[in-house]
């Protein structure tokens, strides 16, 4: 009796569970395909039809942007590189004379274009039209960093990146925004939770890993592989900028907190100093740019940027750092021509070089030259009276762009390490009396210049 019962139950159970299972399998399949059917179908087709897919996608994209007046130009490093190599040929090529596809058919995952946001008028409809023409697009938005520096503003988000795929090739449209300091900025491409990570191989993107800053390029129209595109007039310069384009934003929130605690100095003298320091920095930046010499904000100027996004009113000078490899002998004369006479010169190119120029209104410009050792960097100091040498040690750093008093300037990317090396962990607390020989955390005595060399290494004007 019990056995029969058991059999019946078993049979019933089997039946229901299999029916159940079938239903679930069906449902699950349905659910899966609804979720990322698009993604699946694309990854399947990625290796098919290699010949000319890229070209066709780019062509369609260019047609779309020109018909919709989307102000784009080509920034793809791979293609710009090729163009740069064959620049003469590209410049002379006329419309439609492309016999073979030399540029846009090169195997690659993406083609990168830049969009000049400030020239763009029909932002709203563009996305829809792109999708109607067959593109599948992802849009990455974020809040506008240009409003970050201002207390308590929140605006509509701005687009940072578009990635549009068509027939297994993707166009990466990097949105370039204008910033104060005459440069173009693009944002960080951040994958948020809901974004399909398999949409494209995001890791292989050439732009968007970090925010970036570029000089505003002059553009020219060229015909490449039968397609008319805008490219930077000087592709070489643009290509050189790419690897060093990383941009870091000032820490506006922390700066506001700092001012809540310590209050800003708004006296007439402080405002006058900030104004002349800013002008001096602008002049120095212009002069060094003309020479093609890289520099970064160092010491007090760097601290002012990092801690309070501004110039420290009691700092008395503007401090810049330059790698000794970048030293050029005509720096001094260039500054003198710009109206900044040399005030003193300490050290020599081989050791502890430091230049000081006299700006207007008693503001001094100090340029420290940095020397690289295997595991640290350092710059030198010299006491004029005694000929004593000092050495300031820094952990190794790389350079990033940032915006400071309406200028695009470089700072060490590893800013906190740099500042802590110089000012210690208590850099957040303002210190008004500063002794360059004793106060810095990273200062070391470095012997004395031999008296025979004094005439060369201690020059006061």
């Amino acid at each position: 009796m019990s056995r029969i019962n058991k059999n019946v139950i078993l049979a019933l159970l089997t039946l229901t569970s299999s029916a159940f299972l079938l239903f679930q399998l069906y449902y699950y399949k349905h659910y899966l395909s609804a979720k990322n059917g698009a993604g699946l179908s694309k990854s399947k087709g990625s290796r098919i039809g290699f010949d000319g897919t890229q070209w066709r996608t780019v062509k369609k994209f260019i047609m779309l942007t020109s018909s919709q007046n989307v102000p784009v130009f080509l920034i793809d490093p791979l293609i710009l590189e090729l163009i740069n190599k064959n620049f003469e040929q590209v410049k002379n090529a006329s419309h439609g004379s492309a016999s073979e596809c030399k540029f846009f058919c090169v195997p690659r995952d993406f083609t990168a274009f830049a969009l000049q946001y400030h020239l763009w008028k029909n932002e709203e409809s563009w996305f829809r039209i792109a999708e109607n023409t067959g593109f599948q697009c992802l849009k990455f938005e974020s809040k506008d960093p240009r409003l970050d520096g201002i207390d308590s503003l929140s605006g509509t988000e701005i687009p940072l990146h578009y990635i549009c795929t068509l027939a297994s090739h993707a166009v990466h449209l990097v949105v370039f925004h204008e910033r104060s300091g005459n440069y173009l900025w693009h944002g960080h491409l951040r994958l948020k939770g809901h974004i399909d990570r398999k949409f494209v191989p995001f890791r292989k993107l050439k732009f968007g890993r970090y925010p970036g800053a570029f000089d505003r390029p002059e553009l020219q129209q060229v015909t490449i592989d039968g397609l008319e595109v805008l490219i930077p007039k000087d592709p070489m310069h643009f290509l050189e900028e790419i690897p060093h384009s990383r941009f870091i934003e000032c820490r506006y929130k922390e700066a506001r907190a700092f001012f809540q605690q310590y209050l800003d100095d708004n006296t007439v003298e402080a405002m006058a100093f900030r104004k002349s320091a800013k002008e001096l920095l602008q002049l120095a930046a212009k002069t060094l740019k003309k020479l093609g010499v890289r520099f970064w904000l160092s010491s007090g100027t760097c601290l002012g940027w990092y801690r309070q996004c501004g110039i420290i009113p009691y700092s008395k000078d503007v401090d810049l750092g330059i790698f000794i490899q970048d030293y050029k002998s005509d720096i001094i004369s260039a500054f003198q021509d710009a109206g900044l006479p040399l005030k003193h010169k300490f050290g020599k190119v081989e050791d502890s070089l430091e230049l000081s120029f006299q700006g207007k209104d008693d503001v001094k410009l100090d340029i420290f030259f940095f020397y690289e050792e295997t595991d640290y960097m350092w710059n030198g100091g010299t006491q004029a009276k005694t000929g004593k040498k000092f050495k300031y040690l820094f952990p190794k750093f790389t350079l990033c762009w940032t915006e400071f008093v309406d200028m695009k300037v470089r700072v060490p990317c590893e800013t906190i390490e740099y500042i802590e090396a110089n000012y210690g962990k208590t850099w957040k607390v303002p210190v008004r009396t500063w002794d360059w020989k004793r106060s810095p955390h990273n200062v070391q005595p470095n012997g004395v210049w031999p008296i025979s060399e004094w005439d060369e290494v201690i020059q006061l004007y």
Partner: protein
Amino acid sequence: MDDWKPSPLIKPFGARKKRSWYLTWKYKLTNQRALRRFCQTGAVLFLLVTVIVNIKLILDTRRAISEASEDPEPEKDYDEALGRLESPRHRGSGPRRVLDVEVYSSRSKVYVAVDGTTVLEDEAREQGRGIHVIVLNQATGHVMAKRVFDTYSPHEDEAMVLFLNMVAPGRVLICTVKDEGSFHLKDTAKALLRSLGSQAGPALGWRDTWAFVGRKGGPVLGEKHSKSPALSSWGDPVLLKTDVPLSSAEEAECHWADTELNRRRHRFCSKVEGYGSVCSCKDPTPIEFSPDPLPDNKVFNVPVAVIAGNRPNYLYRMLRSLLSAQGVSPQMITVFIDGYYEEPMDVVALFGLRGIQHTPISIKNARVSQHYKASLTATFNLFPEARFAVVLEEDLDIAVDFFSFLSQSIHLLEEDDSLYCISAWNDQGYEHTAEDPALLYRVETMPGLGWVLRKSLYKEELEPKWPTPEKLWDWDMWMRMPEQRRGRECIIPDISRSYHFGIVGLNMNGYFHEAYFKKHKFNTVPGVQLRNVDSLKKEAYEVEVHRLLSEAEVLDHSKNPCEDSFLPDTEGHTYVAFIRMEKDDDFTTWTRLAKCLHIWDLDVRGNHRGLWRLFRKRNHFLVVGVPASPYSMKKPPSITPIFLEPPPKEEGAPGAAEQT
């Protein structure tokens, strides 16, 4: 969810089967048994797979749900976003077909609750008097508009009529009275309330309480009323509880053609109410304007900052006129909203413009001033290449040739350091004192109300020393101070290119507006060619003024300047009068004269080195202050300057006269 509920039950069965299978294995191994064993194994396997699939499905679904709820703005599908916006947020899930609405009216407190959520509560003293009106979406129950009309005061009932007429038919209307709402509730308004089906509304008496819920153009859904027993007391508080049946979304919406513009319109109209024909189903008013482009437009790339507060209807009117002006470039416009207000943001989105919200950080005037600073800084950050910015406010109408006016004059700001601003507003340009649309003046006062700011002035001078919040200063008063202005002047037109229509504002009330702003002249002629713009430069203007004074006819100084007959009944003449002005800051006679001419007299505006220029009876009328003005030398020796006694101290006009 029900599909996989049985699975937890399956496990014990499985365990039992396992044991019996074990027993059979242990004892007998006949053919039949083997078959049964096979079946049993199969069943167990099935069960196990089912359980696994179930668990996976549950996990997957849960993740999908949490992902969906974590992500408030889906990137890909706008329609989906649209749908989500419209669904009621504060109410529970599932389609509720009935809203339960509570309305309370009393002397000192009113509130309205919809499905237990308070959507209006006002028990502040000395505030919120009158009829509170709330409009609900009939399909979702969303609050679409919230207004209070102080119908104790004059003209507020007209505003209420205007508003109620703009509400689309079918919407749910809720009215409740706080304190007093009948004193200036006139017949038109009462007739409108009657047409809504209200019994008590049209008969509303002194200090009655009243609560009303009804559908626009449809049935009344509830009404309660309590008469005030005596002049000195109020009606008893009334609490109206009623059910409001919801209609389907189909009925509540219009079916416009599917275009980008209509999508914006749809988003707007399903959220807010009280904007009239923009949401009309049949013949909606356009939200895109294609004003003629301006040939050789010099201000096409000048950013326009619109400073706004929480007056969305004003903003709506303002943006309409701005976007209709010749030569406007919408992508250069940014609307800065002082506070986290949604409705002004909706208006901005309706027109497809950029909107930025500013969190309040201080109070009243100082807050306006901080809002200005943040807005101006943001404008120059967003448009780093701009050398100028146009600054507008939300309660201005913009003349059709506003940009044309600026395009023709903006080079002055570049070429002449002695200029502080270009403004579209003439403080003294009233209907009876302004005449010539092609004429410009130089004035020492900064009028504001639609003006152009030079970036270098802002960045180098104003921004660094902008008054801090604790100073509690008006930004425009501060900008007019000699420390800031430093003797520089502004260019203004004779006939204003903006019109100040706001009657509610920080320093504004109905009386004030009627006295000083209503009769202001506003240019409506497109494409006016300005005359002799370069003569507005510092030196050239002196030459021009001297020429004018030389050819001006001296008026009869024995007559009373306040009399109409002071000026002869001519046309096109230039007349000059000399008034007493002992020192640069002695404006006694001028202020009296301004008062009797019915122009701005609350402080001194529109002067240029002791000279005022205006029109009277179509004649150019110059007033020179003697002896302070350098133009005093033009006074014939026989003429004695007019002197008017200062008024005896009386209750007077509002103290701080200010225009924002």
